């Protein structure tokens, strides 16, 4: 079985600073992390590989070259090939331009299934899985909480999706794009001390647009259908604390507030 897993290194949003004077997000000093939902997808793929050792797992990331140390660790955690698609000309790509780059690369690969996260921390639009599937002509399912079955010979995957009011089960024809939801209990395997300095350069493939050959008009800002005009950052506001007594009225107020905010259902 061959699984391709899309993995996006994203800035650690906790460390992003917003420069109000220039109206831009300061990303320079923000540490990169693996997008948590993508990491769940990769962890799921590695679990499959542990259970079925002849599974071949390749991760594919479109990212700046600075992401390389994070990606090299993936090889040390058991990924067979780590592909980094990196080209300065891709800077400013929106989800559409990104999907096109990824699709172009995926067209050159052989696979039974494409894993990815449903959303990214930094964008959050959730558009890439669907656009990619569209470009590749594949079925897509997102919001997956569990993979019940993955059987390329039968040409089918069975997945569970959290439908808020019910857990839904779907059978998806393979090959397909499967987008996972974050699951803190499904973690990438730990790096071991002995592996830390293992040379994995043979398992890392870095390529740019010279290899993919997209037209200049399809790249970066020019190839994007959308553009960021302005980012609005919510200002922090001080809330007035509400003091309640532990009586029926207090409880009702808390329940009402939780319902209003969508934490519990009426």
């Amino acid at each position, binding site marked *: 079985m061959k699984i391709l897993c899309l993995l996006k290194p994203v800035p650690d949003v906790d460390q992003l600073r917003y420069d109000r004077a220039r109206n831009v997000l300061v990303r320079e000093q923000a540490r990169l992390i693996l997008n948590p939902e993508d990491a769940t997808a990769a962890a799921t793929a590695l679990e499959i590989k542990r259970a079925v050792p002849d599974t071949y797992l390749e991760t594919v990331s479109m990212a700046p070259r600075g992401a390389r140390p994070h990606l090299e660790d993936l090889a040390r955690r058991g990924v067979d090939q780590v592909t980094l698609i990196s080209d300065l000309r891709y800077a400013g790509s929106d989800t559409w331009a990104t999907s096109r780059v990824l699709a172009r690369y995926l067209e050159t690969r052989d696979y039974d299934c494409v894993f990815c996260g449903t959303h990214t921390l930094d964008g959050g639009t959730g558009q890439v899985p669907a656009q990619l599937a569209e470009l590749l002509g594949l079925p897509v399912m997102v919001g997956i909480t569990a993979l019940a079955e993955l059987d390329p010979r039968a040409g089918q995957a069975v997945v569970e999706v959290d439908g808020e009011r019910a857990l839904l089960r779907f059978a998806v024809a393979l090959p397909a794009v499967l987008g996972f939801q974050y699951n803190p209990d499904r973690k990438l395997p730990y*790096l071991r001390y002995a592996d830390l300095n293992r040379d994995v350069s043979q398992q890392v493939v870095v390529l740019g647009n010279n290899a993919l050959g997209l037209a200049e008009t399809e790249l970066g800002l020019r190839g994007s259908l959308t553009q960021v005009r302005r980012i609005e950052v919510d200002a922090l506001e001080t809330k007035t604390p509400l003091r309640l007594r532990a009586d029926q009225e207090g409880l009702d107020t808390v329940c009402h507030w939780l319902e209003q905010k969508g934490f519990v259902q009426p």
Partner: protein
Amino acid sequence: MDKNTVLELVARILPASQINTTADDLYDAAADRYKKYAKARKVLDVPPPAAIVYPRTTEEVARLLAMCNTHGINVIPRSGKTATEGGLENWKENTLVVDARDLNRIIKIDEYNMQATVEAGVTLQALENELNQRGLTTGHSPQSKPVAKLGGLVATRSIGQFSTLYGGIEDMVVGLECVFPDGHVARIKNVPRRAGGPDIRHIAIGNEGTLCYITEVTVKLYRHFPANNVFLGYLIKDVASGIKVLREVMVNGYRPSVARVYSEEDARQHFSHFYKGHCVLLFMAEGNQGIVQATRAGIEAAVERFKDGLVEPVDSGLIAAWFARLNWSQKDIDDEFQGMIHNDSHAGFTTEVSADWETIPVLYENVMKRVRAEFPRAHDLTMLGGHSSHSYINGTNLYFVYNYAINCAPEDELRVYHHPIQRIIVEETLKLGGSMCHHHGIGKYRSEWTRDEHGSAYYLLEKLKQAFDPNGIMNFGTIFYQAEGARFLQ
């Protein structure tokens, strides 16, 4: 000798109620907060001790130590269990942890002579509570005050947050009682000062349980005027600008109880609600009104003199509110422990060093550069910064603070992350002539540099160990490097 024999020997000295062999407690006693993450994940690589014992009198301590000395049993003295450098970690199969839990009496609060005598197992908080009711304080206020006990506080040469006014524990101890491995009990009397030969208090203060067991301590007392406290805070351009102000305040003779500079990164984790991406400089002036007002004026003059480095003042209410929540209770410690069981993260690590005024800014920059350039897991760092929090006439300390996303197995965490960073900090500090440990003690994990720390003066330290603990039964591996323990130091 096997563990059962150790237990038989102990049972000849103490009743069963003073001997603890519960498996969970022994596991907990195998290591301190240095290996907090591995401990929480149940992957400790060090053996549990044979037993934890709770002597109730100095005499029982003396009999226990003499017995261990005769039979070559390792002794780990223990008080509040807040050690951070491996001082409580066990590297021997046959070890007795001698816990001061039941040496818990406040013996005397002598208001006229301004001194208080307590047993080693009294928490500093308990003593302070008694004293504060009488308008007094020891002036000692480490962040671990609610949990740390007098025996440990003296044994580690601890320092409190008000040190710039009151000094470290070494400035507070008047006299003490301690027990040596051969069972000898030494009482160092309480006098205001004396010139009776070298100051022998300093053999016990800071010995980290490697020379003697401290059973009783007498400390100085001060009048307490918390209502007069004044807080001052400033956003500043960089660490070096803050250090200049600290120096100015100190050399002009002012003694604010708190005088601190935070790097931008460290400020972010403490003062995210007001730091605005800058470094933070803060002070607290304490004492009677006249002193407080004079200290405040001195601080303001120093800030004015170096105003090029100033960004803007901070509302003093914010500093006061932050300060009120700084101490760690046992619950905070337990919460961090619980968190580590479930998450691949902890509250971070620190390495605290000191050097003279000239050296400190250079040291800070050198360490930052080296960590960023050489630390192989720099991309996992979530925080790297520091602060200066204890100043003296000739210099100050630096508290390097760092945290990281833990991507390795729990048992590998220290050698993958903390050790390489700590090594850089220690090497750079020693290269520039500073001290590699400002207040946590050497513990086990800086013992490989004890010789370098002391240079030719190591001779004195070595002779003390040979004289007082010739059989090497006191806290094996702490302060004094042991080749046998090298595998843990990687």
